[in-house]
């Protein structure tokens, strides 16, 4: 072999060793799905799509929650709260919401995406009880790229209602069913009933979406998604694909995080494990709100389940309980990463209330402060005629000790800790509490039927809305879930307003859910927060926060600052947040 031959061999070896180009980077996450053979690609039927959801499907817009139309700060500062995805623009009026779609978008199977696809999704969504159908009268598609949502009742929540669902049922596959659905008839009447049955039986192998990634393979432990080369933002998506590890329980995800296998994951994590995970180079923890909180709920029915007169009907009695509980300690024990609520009881999310006018200053000037004060609690009980016995337990006028049961869902480990903590604190104060857990299958039914004295409940939930209307509706509207638990519709107790007169909170909540006037909304929110705080139907003590571990500089770079409002995209769809960051070119791969 001559010298050129050796040179050629040397160059070939070099190219083979180093010349394969930059390594393709996969984003590593964790999520849940049904393992094969149950896995399938129909988002309508149970077991379908799983963790691939936000990677393969897209919404029309992504809505960053908050008051007003413009995002005030952070990554997306100055932009409209509706970040465009499959749609480009909108026009919002009390009569209709008109959406202009992005042109040139394709489904993963190559079919073009048009307004017929959007129509198909919202029509099938009727069968799934999508919240938008409370307000929606009809959907019109005047051309391939325009969709008109016509309201039967105007709603200020048009944006979250339209932005929440992903477009998951292409017309060319699901249109034959959508065409049969009659949205003027009940879901369980024909033809809707038969269509539901047919849709539940349809189980394609993989989902077909328009999202930035396509499902490639799925096993019981891993899911592999590859980049969709024809995606409208493919040039900005800097990842070759997504590798998801199956999330069976939090312990396993902690292991994956500690082993450096994940770029981001959000397991609720003990403090010591959190500290260990955060020691990994580049690992950070963001804690945006989970749009919900925990509270202690009082039974406000005429009598207690055993027929005894109900002392919780007395506001001062409930206030005494509130003062007797150190909510900071309770929150720490129950959900250490949450946001403790230690002073007031507005029924609003602690992290977002100030945005809606319920500021610290306003509360200090207008509301009763229930900060931990056992002396005040004792004073209130004495005013009501209770006396402390020689054993340190409070007794009523007949000499009977104050003794109540406190129940929670047996499957919610944080609630189990909470009831033990409350029992210990109130015993210290002089009230006997008997903690009791009930299996999930009977818990909700039993408490909604009033079969409890004190119980654990959700408060300020605004899943799907991220608006105080949903938070306040939970407890102050007769159809709200916590309102049904406390017995709002049955109670002889009259909720009093700021003017000292009984108020119809249900009507006020409905009014809040119908007004477009931001100032009016703030006024109603403040009034309802006042009613919630001063009438104290429940005692909130912690707002849940999502613990999002994310690693900078290993495979992924460019994560937003921890206080960026963009993190508010995480509750209800954490992968929606990741995909938005990818499509906007915010996070990029580290080769």
């Amino acid at each position, binding site marked *: 072999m001559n010298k050129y031959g050796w040179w050629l061999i040397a160059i070939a070896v070099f190219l083979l060793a180093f010349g394969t180009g930059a390594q393709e980077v996969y984003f590593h996450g964790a999520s849940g799905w049904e393992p094969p053979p149950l896995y399938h690609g129909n988002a309508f039927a149970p077991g379908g799509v799983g963790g691939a959801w936000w990677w393969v499907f897209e919404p029309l817009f992504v809505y960053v929650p908050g008051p007003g139309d413009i995002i005030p700060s952070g990554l997306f500062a100055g932009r409209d709260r509706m970040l465009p995805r499959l749609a480009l623009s909108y026009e919002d009026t009390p009569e209709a919401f008109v959406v202009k779609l992005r042109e040139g978008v394709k489904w993963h199977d190559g079919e073009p995406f048009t307004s017929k696809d959007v129509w198909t999704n919202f029509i099938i969504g009727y069968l799934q009880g999508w919240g938008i159908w409370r307000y929606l009268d009809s959907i019109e598609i005047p051309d391939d790229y325009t969709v008109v949502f016509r309201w039967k009742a105007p709603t200020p929540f048009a944006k979250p209602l339209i932005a929440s669902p992903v477009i998951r049922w292409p017309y060319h596959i699901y249109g034959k069913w959508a065409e049969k659905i009659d949205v003027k008839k009940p879901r369980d009447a024909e033809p809707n009933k038969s269509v539901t049955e047919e849709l539940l039986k349809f189980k394609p192998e993989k989902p077909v979406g328009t999202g930035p990634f396509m499902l490639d393979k799925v096993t019981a432990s*891993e899911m592999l998604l590859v980049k969709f080369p024809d995606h409208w933002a493919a040039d900005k998506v800097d990842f070759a694909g997504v590798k998801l590890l199956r999330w069976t329980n939090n312990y396993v995800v902690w292991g994956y995080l500690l082993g450096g296998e994940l770029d981001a994951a959000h397991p609720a994590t003990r403090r010591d494990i959190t500290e260990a995970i955060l020691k990994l180079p580049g690992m950070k923890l963001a804690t945006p709100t989970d749009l919900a909180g925990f509270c202690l709920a009082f039974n406000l029915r005429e009598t207690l389940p055993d027929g005894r007169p109900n002392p919780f009907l007395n506001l001062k009695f409930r206030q005494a309980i509130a003062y007797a509980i150190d909510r900071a300690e309770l929150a720490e024990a129950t959900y250490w990463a949450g946001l403790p609520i230690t002073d007031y009881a507005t029924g609003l999310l602690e992290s977002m209330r100030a945005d809606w006018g319920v500021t610290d200053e306003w509360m200090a000037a207008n509301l009763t402060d229930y900060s931990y004060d056992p002396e005040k609690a004792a004073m209130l009980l004495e005013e009501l005629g209770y006396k402390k016995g020689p054993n340190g337990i409070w007794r009523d006028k007949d000499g009977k000790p104050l003794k109540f049961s406190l129940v929670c869902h047996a499957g919610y480990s944080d609630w189990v800790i909470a009831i033990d903590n409350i029992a210990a604190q109130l015993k210290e104060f002089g009230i006997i509490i008997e903690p009791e857990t009930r299996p999930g*299958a009977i818990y909700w039914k039993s408490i909604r039927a009033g079969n409890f004295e004190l119980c654990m409940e959700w408060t300020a939930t605004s899943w799907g809305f991220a608006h105080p209307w949903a938070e306040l509706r939970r407890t102050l509207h007769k159809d709200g879930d916590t309102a049904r638990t406390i017995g709002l519709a049955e109670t002889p107790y009259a909720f009093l307003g700021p003017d000292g007169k009984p108020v119809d909170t249900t009507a006020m909540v409905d009014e809040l859910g119908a007004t477009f006037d931001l100032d009016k909304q703030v006024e109603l929110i403040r009034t309802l927060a006042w009613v919630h705080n001063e009438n104290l139907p429940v005692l909130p003590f912690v707002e849940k926060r999502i613990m999002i571990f994310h690693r900078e500089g290993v495979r992924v770079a460019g994560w937003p600052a921890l206080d960026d409002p963009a993190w508010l995209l995480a509750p209800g769809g954490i992968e929606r947040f990741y995909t938005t960051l990818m499509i906007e070119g915010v996070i990029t791969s580290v080769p």
Partner: protein
Amino acid sequence: MTIIVKRLVLAILTITVAALVTFIVIQNVPGDPLYEWAMDMVQTSGLDFETAYKMAAQMYGYDPNQPLLDRLVTYVKRLLKGDLGYSMIYRASVNQIIAKALPWTAFVVSVSLLLSFSMGVILGTLVAWKRRSILDPLVTGYASFTAATPDYVTAMLLLLFFAINLKWFPSKGAYDIGIEPGFSLAFIGNVLHHAALPILSYTLEAVGGWALAMKGAAISVLGEDYIMAAKARGLKDQRIVTSYLARNSILPLITGLAISFGAMFGGSILIETIFNYPGMGWFFSQALMRKDYGMMQGLFLLTITATILANFLADILYAKLDPRVRLER
């Protein structure tokens, strides 16, 4: 032969009674699964509870007000066709689920059982033979320790040490997602690599129990005349241990082994969950957690049937292995 038929009929009767009892118990567990499912919908979709409850009833095709007898008739009709049931959550046949999950569980658990049984028999025999050696307290202590330690703790420790810290073994799944399943060396090697930690977890947990059982059986055999005679004849220790002691002591353990093989059809919820292994345990846990009556009934019935049949086979095998034992007529 007649006695075998009688035993078989008895086994079938037992399975029938067990199926009925399981059905009645599961159907009468307090609570309404629709409430849990509806709450899931409320939390994920922002639906109000009433709507979510109706949706759940429709989605899962479950009517809590259907009379028990009607449900029983449907169940029995399906069973007679060889259909173990229908999962309410997944709207899929339980047979289909079992067909995919059982091979993985059978592979991991049978290898573990054979390994732990073999090691346990050897250790138990040695401990009985050399009772005053250090081996006795070591094996007994180990057996007590593993009996007191939940299997998921062992699995978690193995995961942390060998998969996460040392990275010697994969932490999850039955094989790498990048490898094409098939009869190839690469795939088989990959499967064995992935199965190593689940097998080790099962084995470490079970070996102590087998060793103690074997020790007990061997000690009683040691007092037998034929052992004394073998010693008096000057036979080598190794021959006495293998041909006289171990062979005779192992017989009582056969029933236990058969029952364990039967019970393996249930998989291990905790180990399979920790290693993300695609076995029966995962589906069992889902059925229990989500109150999927159809799947629960099917999986329980399979495990019960397997255990009863394994017992039946153990009886026959026992009689063949030990000429002193005769099946009663």
